[in-house]
């Protein structure tokens, strides 16, 4: 049966002079459903869908004239439609003031026809499942019964309350009221006539309706539109919208991955994620052509059928052939844009190139996304045969595929560790979560995970543990309301040590493990490469902000190799990033602050090719202490010289060289499991300090301060306390614990102490001295400097009232007097100290007293 109102087939348009005008506003009637004919509300034919045999390829071709003889009765009482649609030339909308807008996203022509399951003429493709039921109308080729479908959807809108709703997701919605009714109210107030419907909600409400939506979106969505508009204008009869409400389903579960698209998905509603790589300019697409007879001025409208216009060859009024001419400015156009979507790098199997798929966006969805955006697209997958060429009898046997976009969801805006919440929930199947939770209950999970980290690197257990905690990160705390801004949750780690101690390998491993990791080398990167720069797009002459490694690794880890080789200006960028976690840019008129919530894992080599154990860390790697103090943990990777270690190392290495790959994998935790474990913990576990833990932390801090105070120096700063907190939180995350407990603090303390022991030990005294890292000089060294200056002062004073002294003479005297070796540098430093005290001045080779 032809549903006249929902747009008759094109073939009719060409032959039936009366029908064309009604097509113009074909959605009119869908809105004005007040005077619906009574319809049996039997459930739609379930089970086998009648279209199933050719559902494989049920694109528009199915509805073409050639397939079905035009033998249905338009005037049949079974015809489902509204009177208004049959009245010629009723351009006014069903609801006062609100015009209807076509939905090009649902295909250029909606030729939905209903089929009475009893009428035998058309039943070739239709399987009547339940003959005993009365009249049963379904849209041709589907099992969708318009009335029941509409009713169900209305029920869904009116009743659906999301049991799983989280507050942060829907601000301003009352979670105990029907969710979509509130949305409609919003539409009434805001005036944006789009109703986004989460398919997941629909599925939990009515499985069958959901299935129909997925399988026959082209037919079901207009029905939804109809239903939504009915409810809306029922409630807000005076509301005037730009056009009628369009329902936009999203989050269909059908397909997530571009790679899994296959011919079965054609014409179905799918949701895929990917990255926009190109977008075309706006294309005006003709929706309806306007023809005028040049002889009698008779006008007619022809709808576009799959991008083609069937130009009427005969004027229906005066019967002149080839007299109809297209009038461009009276034809109707809609906006269209082609977008290329590429599958996201995470979805790609190794060693293959990414797939792309073309998207067509219509009307207000045009220009909604830019190249580089990560989006979730919901739309209808189409396959169009490549046009039959009239001059060549053969056709290319390949179809063109694209997706008509119905809904975009940008994942960038609220991304959390590489994937947005929506996707993330999907990422972990329930079994996976079970496995992860099971794992987390193991007592030795911390050790297990740390040994799974870079198994090819031997030992260095504490360093691996440190990195493991870095991967988990602390809890993010927001103190912005008290004016202190965000507290850093990321843990920064510096590895220094002899070259060839697999530091780079460790960095590479981490970079490969985390989804949002960046790897740069200090040698090759400039400040610009790390931060962001402004570039002029050669085509559009538009200024574009290009982001560098630090911004790209927002929420990830930025691995910087050869940290020491980095030049001063580049390094200075890191100061802001490592504490404030932001990046300020003022360049070419663009002033902005970008988030760079990145953990930094850096590796530095000693200035001398070998680590000099007689020197402090600062002296060895020659990095400014201001930067060093921003690292939570600084580890030395030195070559341990001990026989047992050598033996274990040798065995480990030898095994690398002959064991097969499978065997190796068995032994350790799979990298994928590790990755999931971390991702899960990062997004779901947010530990808070327990009372005991806070006490333990306070104690630990006080203890640290005490150590130093005994010798008259400061041995811990608040920064160290913050580090401890972060480490403890990260350790709690490893256990999937929502509470930071004493054991976490213990481990944090231990690790922190280990790292300090390695990096902040004063080589002269053998005492751990935090001031090496915070001020760049150990307290004893400072003390010695002062002593020397005093000795020098005494020496000069002992010389009596000489206004000037010879430099070399003084140096030699001091050396002779002192019981420790005095280097020239030390001497000069002492002179400088005295000069600062306005005791003397140094001019050239003479020292003058003041």
């Amino acid at each position, binding site marked *: 049966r032809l549903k006249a109102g929902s747009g008759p087939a094109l073939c009719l348009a060409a032959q039936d002079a009366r029908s064309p005008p009604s097509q113009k506003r074909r959605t009119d009637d869908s809105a004005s459903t007040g005077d619906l004919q009574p319809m049996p509300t039997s459930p739609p034919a379930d089970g086998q869908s009648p279209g199933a*045999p*050719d559902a*494989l*390829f049920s694109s528009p*071709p199915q509805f073409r004239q050639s*397939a079905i003889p035009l033998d249905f009765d338009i005037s049949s009482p079974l015809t489902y439609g509204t009177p208004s649609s049959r009245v010629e030339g009723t351009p006014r909308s069903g609801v006062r003031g609100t015009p209807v807008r076509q939905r090009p996203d649902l295909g250029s022509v909606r030729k939905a026809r209903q089929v009475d399951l009893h009428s035998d003429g058309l039943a070739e*493709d239709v399987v009547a499942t339940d003959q005993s039921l009365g009249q049963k109308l379904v849209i041709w080729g589907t099992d969708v019964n318009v009335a029941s479908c509409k009713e169900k959807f209305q029920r869904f809108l009116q009743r659906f309350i999301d049991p799983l709703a989280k507050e942060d997701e829907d601000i301003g919605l009352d979670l105990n009221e029907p969710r979509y009714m509130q949305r409609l109210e919003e539409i009434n107030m805001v005036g944006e006539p789009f109703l986004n419907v989460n398919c997941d909600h629909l599925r939990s409400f009515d499985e069958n309706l959901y299935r129909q939506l997925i399988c026959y979106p082209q037919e079901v969505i207009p029905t939804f539109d109809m239903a939504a508009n009915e409810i809306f204008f029922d409630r807000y009869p005076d509301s005037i919208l730009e056009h009628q409400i369009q329902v936009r389903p999203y989050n269909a579960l059908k397909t997530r991955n571009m790679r899994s698209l296959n011919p079965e998905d*054609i014409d179905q509603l799918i949701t895929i994620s990917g*990255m926009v*790589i*190109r977008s*075309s*300019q706006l*294309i005006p*697409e003709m929706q309806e052509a306007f023809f005028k007879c040049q002889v009698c001025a008779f006008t007619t409208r022809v709808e576009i059928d799959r*991008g083609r*216009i069937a130009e009427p060859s005969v004027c229906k009024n005066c019967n002149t052939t080839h007299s109809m001419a297209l009038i461009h400015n009276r034809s109707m156009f809609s906006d269209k844009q*082609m977008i290329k979507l590429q599958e996201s*790098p995470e979805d*790609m199997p*190794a*060693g*293959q*190139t990414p797939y792309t798929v073309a998207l067509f966006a219509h009307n207000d969805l045009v220009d909604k996304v830019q*190249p*580089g955006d990560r989006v979730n697209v919901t739309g209808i997958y189409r*396959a169009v*045969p*490549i*046009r*039959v060429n009239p*001059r060549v*009898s*053969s*056709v*290319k*046997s*390949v179809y063109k*595929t694209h997706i008509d976009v119905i809904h975009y969801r940008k994942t960038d805006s609220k991304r959390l560790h590489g994937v947005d919440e929506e996707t993330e929930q999907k990422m972990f199947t329930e079994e996976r979560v079970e496995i992860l939770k099971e794992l987390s209950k193991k007592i030795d999970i911390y050790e297990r995970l740390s040994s799974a980290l*870079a*198994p*090819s690197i031997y030992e260095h257990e504490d360093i691996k543990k440190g990195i493991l905690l870095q991967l988990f990160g602390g809890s993010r705390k927001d103190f912005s309301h008290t004016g202190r801004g965000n507290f850093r949750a990321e843990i920064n780690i510096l590895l220094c040590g002899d070259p*060839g101690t*697999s530091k780079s*390998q460790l960095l*590479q*491993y981490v970079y490969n493990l985390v989804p949002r990791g960046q790897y740069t080398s200090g040698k090759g990167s400039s400040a610009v490469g790390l931060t962001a720069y402004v570039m002029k797009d050669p085509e559009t002459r538009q200024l574009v902000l290009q982001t560098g490694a630090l911004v790209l690794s927002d929420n990830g880890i930025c691995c910087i190799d050869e940290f020491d080789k980095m030049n001063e200006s580049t390094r200075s960028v890191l100061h802001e990033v490592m504490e404030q976690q932001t990046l300020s840019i003022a360049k070419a008129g663009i002033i902005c602050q970008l988030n760079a919530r990145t953990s930094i894992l850096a590796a530095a080599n000693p200035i001398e090719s070998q680590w000099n154990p007689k020197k402090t860390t600062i002296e060895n790697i020659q990095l400014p202490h201001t930067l060093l103090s921003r690292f939570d943990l600084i580890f030395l990777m030195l*070559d341990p*010289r001990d*026989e047992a270690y*050598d033996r274990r*190392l*040798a*065995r480990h*290495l*030898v095994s*690398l*060289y*002959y064991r097969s790959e499978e065997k*190796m994998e068995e032994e350790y935790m799979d990298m994928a499991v590790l990755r999931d474990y971390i991702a899960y913990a990062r997004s779901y576990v947010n530990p808070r300090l327990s009372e005991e833990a806070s006490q333990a932390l306070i104690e630990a801090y006080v203890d640290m301060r005490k150590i130093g105070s005994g010798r008259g120096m400061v041995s811990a700063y608040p920064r160290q306390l913050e580090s401890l907190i972060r480490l403890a939180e990260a350790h709690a995350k490893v256990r999937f614990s929502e509470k930071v407990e004493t054991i976490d603090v213990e481990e944090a303390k231990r690790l922190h102490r280990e790292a300090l022991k390695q990096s902040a030990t004063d080589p002269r005294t053998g005492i751990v001295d935090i001031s090496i890292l915070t001020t760049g000089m150990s307290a004893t060294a400072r003390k010695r400097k002062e002593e020397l200056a005093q000795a020098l002062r005494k020496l000069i004073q002992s010389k009596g009232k000489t206004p000037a002294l010879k430099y070399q003479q003084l140096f030699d005297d001091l050396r002779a007097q002192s019981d420790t070796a005095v280097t020239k540098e030390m001497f000069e430093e002492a002179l400088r100290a005295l000069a600062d005290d306005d005791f003397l001045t140094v001019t050239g080779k003479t020292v003058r007293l003041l």
Partner: protein
Amino acid sequence: MPCVADWLNNPFSIVQGIFAQNVPNSDWEKKVTEYFKEKLKENNATNWVPSLNDVPVHYLKPNSLVKFRCMVQDMFDPEFYMGVYETVDPNTNARVLHFGKYRDVAECGPQQEIDLNSSQTVTSERQTFYCVPVPGESAWVKEISFFASQARVSPSTSYTPSRHKRSYEEDEDMDLHPSKQKEQHMGSGGDTHGCVEPKRLETEASAGHHLISPNCSPPLDLNFPLPGEKGPACLVKVYESWDSFKVNDVLEVYGILSVDPVLSIVNNEERDSSTLDPMECMDMAEEQRVHSPPASLVPRIHVILAQKLQHINPLLPACLNEEESKTCEYLSFVSNFMSELSPVRAELLGFLTHALLGDGLAAEYLILHLISTVYARRDVLPLGKFTVNLSGCPRNSIFTEHIYRIIQQLVPASYRLQMTIENMNHSRFIPHKDYTANRLVSGVLQLASNTSLVVDETQLEQGQLDTTGVHNVTALGNLITWQKVDYDFNYHQMEFPCNINVLITSEGRSLLPSDCQIHLQPQIIPPNMEEYMNSLLTAVLPSVLNKFRIYLSLLRLLDYSISDEVTKAVEEDFVEMRKNDPESITADDLHRTLLVARFLSLSAGQTTLSRERWLRAKQLEALRKARLQQQKCVNGNEL
């Protein structure tokens, strides 16, 4: 004799036959593949199939069965096609079913129309790979495989042998010898084993230049990874298990050649009459151009059988995958060769010693290098790579060039990268995605597994590297250290693991990382390097040269293990060494010594490590280090 068999000349008739028999159910597809698999199993049948590597496209019969040895350069999006379709005769209303598999164009008679809405239509999916001949494939590989098949191929192709002879000469450079030009300025270097007559080389070279110009007015970039490569690029349509193939895999495909001119016409028409179809009038022209180039330039192969190749050495029986490597033929070949392994090794060592100006130690390391291969990856660490830095090469001398020529004669695929400032700043090393054309634009570092990359650092002068240069050097460094190349996808990078043997020739220590540096100590200084090297190559009998080639390719494929006993011994040894000299023996040294031991054992045909080999490896390492130490002293004195 299957010489004029239908399955070769007209495979469609076979497919049609099977299709007609089984039409209602879909297992006809399986039967077709099985049929051809059987046919190709018959003795030497694979040699009867003309190869696109050897025969120019326009001498191959359209729709005949061909084979192609190639590397997957890029993968296009999967396409949906009409697997089965129906035609209608509008006059008689007679309906006929056709299969669309293995075809680009849905065929239908002049009086018929394709019924796009038929319920019989089956839509299927296939994948297109853009394939190029194996980059850097040595001339000898092409020649040997050419002669292996050429002798018998003529009956099955459409052109007569006499005509073929001429055509071969004319067109050979179009698709046969990417290294032609190299050979040209290398003089007669490639001819030592008498396969290519110098006369023909000349004709080819002269013919080659004007052949290219008239053909393509806007020259279509065929996207070869290496500059100066030629040969047919091909769109390979894969019908099953395409997920198992990866970019840079080397494949041998058997399939139906499609060069239907309609393919190009359809495109042109589309472009002309694009006014109405908004999909066409977009800026997709470039993508169109790249994705469906004229069939005469880039033929299509509809794959019936595709196999991953582990090696491309035609002298070895093809062992395509794990199971087949256990076949008798292969095993007997291996055991035969193994029995004469040591003389071959000795000869090869002698040959290389001469080539390296009498330096036996360097020659030993070169052998180890040539048989090295990445056999496993331990998280990010590739195991089995053995990058050798041959330092002490005379600067600006033709020596390095000749070393490369010798390597080229030994390995199936190789490339010489001249590391000049100019080259580093201007060449494309890293493949990158061109989103306008939607393809992966190739770069020098897109190479198939086991390609020998000879980096010539002696060419490097002081100078400024620009951004590209820095990226290129970094990429090269990453390739050496991690055996992976990060392809540039503009918005992100993607890592492609690779397995490339890098040999760096340099004057001093190379600026690139390497696993092992060996300083060359020439024993002989030939007065005329050119002459010396040439005579060296001519002195080797072709049969001996072939043995070298088999030797190097075969040993890569062997398994290797270390017994517990030896593990213990190695452990003890290491601990002992560390005790005596903890400064100079590090984990890295152990790594390297184990590698040397591995390849040393393999090079002698032993698949387990013995104590003797371990000691020998240690000895070699000691010698090498002593040399470096000595070199350092010399340099120190100079400074």
